[in-house]
């Protein structure tokens, strides 16, 4: 097919107008998120950074999360693990997380063993196995990079709980639907940080917006040794750990 220059320009013009309209439609969702107006999902891509060298295992994050999100007792959207690695035996670290670390950790003085704390939470994967396994479209990656559960739609089959390689999901004991970290979506869409970051006394955890060029996360990722959990699974995990030991699973 031969196109004259005039036809080509007209077609390009139509395409731009139509795709602009499509973008407009994409940008104005119906309810609360947009009604608060200033928050535009397309402007954000949420993540979190965790500095292992700053975590003191106080459990403030676990408590704050439980209060903020009404997490049922015995279940955790975030938790803290204490690792102890004896010498060269990196394949068999001693890991403990008494009640998720919600009451902190019993003090221990083991100077001859390498030990450190690892806070964990949903990695809000960009290519999440949990989203792929949901048969009804109840769990999804939001346009701003948060993995969420539509609890009206969830049938409680538990496939996502099994699919998550990080153990970040559970079935709610009374609602009987999947439940997990929302990255405090109700806070970050209002310009606040997450409850765990708000309560962290040392700043070990920081909410990060990868689409904000002024966010310190870019410096953090550039100058530090960064690791995600289970990188071999190619989940696109967005919780970035600084100085994470190789023994961490």
């Amino acid at each position, binding site marked *: 097919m031969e196109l004259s220059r005039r036809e080509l320009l007209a077609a390009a013009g139509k395409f731009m107008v139509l795709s602009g309209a499509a973008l407009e439609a*994409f940008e104005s*969702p*119906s*309810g*609360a*998120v947009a009604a608060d107006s200033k928050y535009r*999902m397309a402007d954000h891509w949420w993540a979190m950074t965790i500095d292992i*060298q*700053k*975590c*003191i*295992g*106080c*459990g*403030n994050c676990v408590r*704050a999360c439980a*209060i*903020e999100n009404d997490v049922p007792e015995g279940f955790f959207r975030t938790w803290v693990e*204490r*690792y*102890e690695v004896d010498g060269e035996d990196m394949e068999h670290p001693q890991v403990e997380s008494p009640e998720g670390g919600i009451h*902190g*950790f019993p*003090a*221990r*003085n*083991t*100077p001859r*063993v390498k*030990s*450190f*704390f690892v806070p964990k939470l949903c990695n809000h994967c960009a290519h999440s196995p949990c989203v792929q396994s949901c048969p009804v*479209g*109840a*769990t*999804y*990656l*939001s*346009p701003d990079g948060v993995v*969420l559960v*539509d*609890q*009206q*739609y969830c049938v409680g089959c538990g496939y996502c709980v099994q699919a998550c390689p990080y153990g970040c999901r559970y079935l709610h004991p009374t609602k009987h639907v999947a439940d997990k970290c*929302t990255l*405090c*979506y*109700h*806070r970050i*869409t*209002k310009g*606040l*940080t997450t*409850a765990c970051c*708000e*309560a*962290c*006394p*040392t*700043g070990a955890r920081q909410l990060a917006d990868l689409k904000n060029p002024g966010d310190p996360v870019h410096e953090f990722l550039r100058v530090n040794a960064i690791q995600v959990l289970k990188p071999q699974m190619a989940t696109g995990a967005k919780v970035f750990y600084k100085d994470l030991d190789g023994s961490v699973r």
Partner: protein
Amino acid sequence: MFTSGMRRIFEGSEHLIRLACVAVLVVLAFLAIRHALVPPEFGKYGYFRPGSLDEIAARTPVFAGRQACASCHDDIVAAKSKGPHANVGCEACHGPLGLHAQDFASQKPVLPNTAKLCVVCHEADAAKPKTFPQVVSREHAGDTACGVCHNPHQPRM
């Protein structure tokens, strides 16, 4: 009703017409049920119901955030900014005070007990970073509460 030509075409194929009618009804019934069951705007951003984004975002925060605290207690924030606790959020020690931030009379903050609060972070543990200030509280102070000697907002003595 049919012209003679059309009648000739449909002659002997009434069973096919009946079948076609049933097929059309089935398709219409499918579309009607689908319309009733699939929520409006499903699939707008992906394979999910976009209304759930709004529902999740609509919840009220329980922790007010440190900016809310500073809007009234700027004197404390200024004093704290000179000490090592400058970057510790108010609610990290004082607990969630979202209601207090909305209406200060509706929720009265409870003064934390320094005998129990400070050791949550500062009790010595081998897993804590070596640069983090930590003490074995029993040896350091016995039964004396930390607040007797230290000001939590400016803890250096």
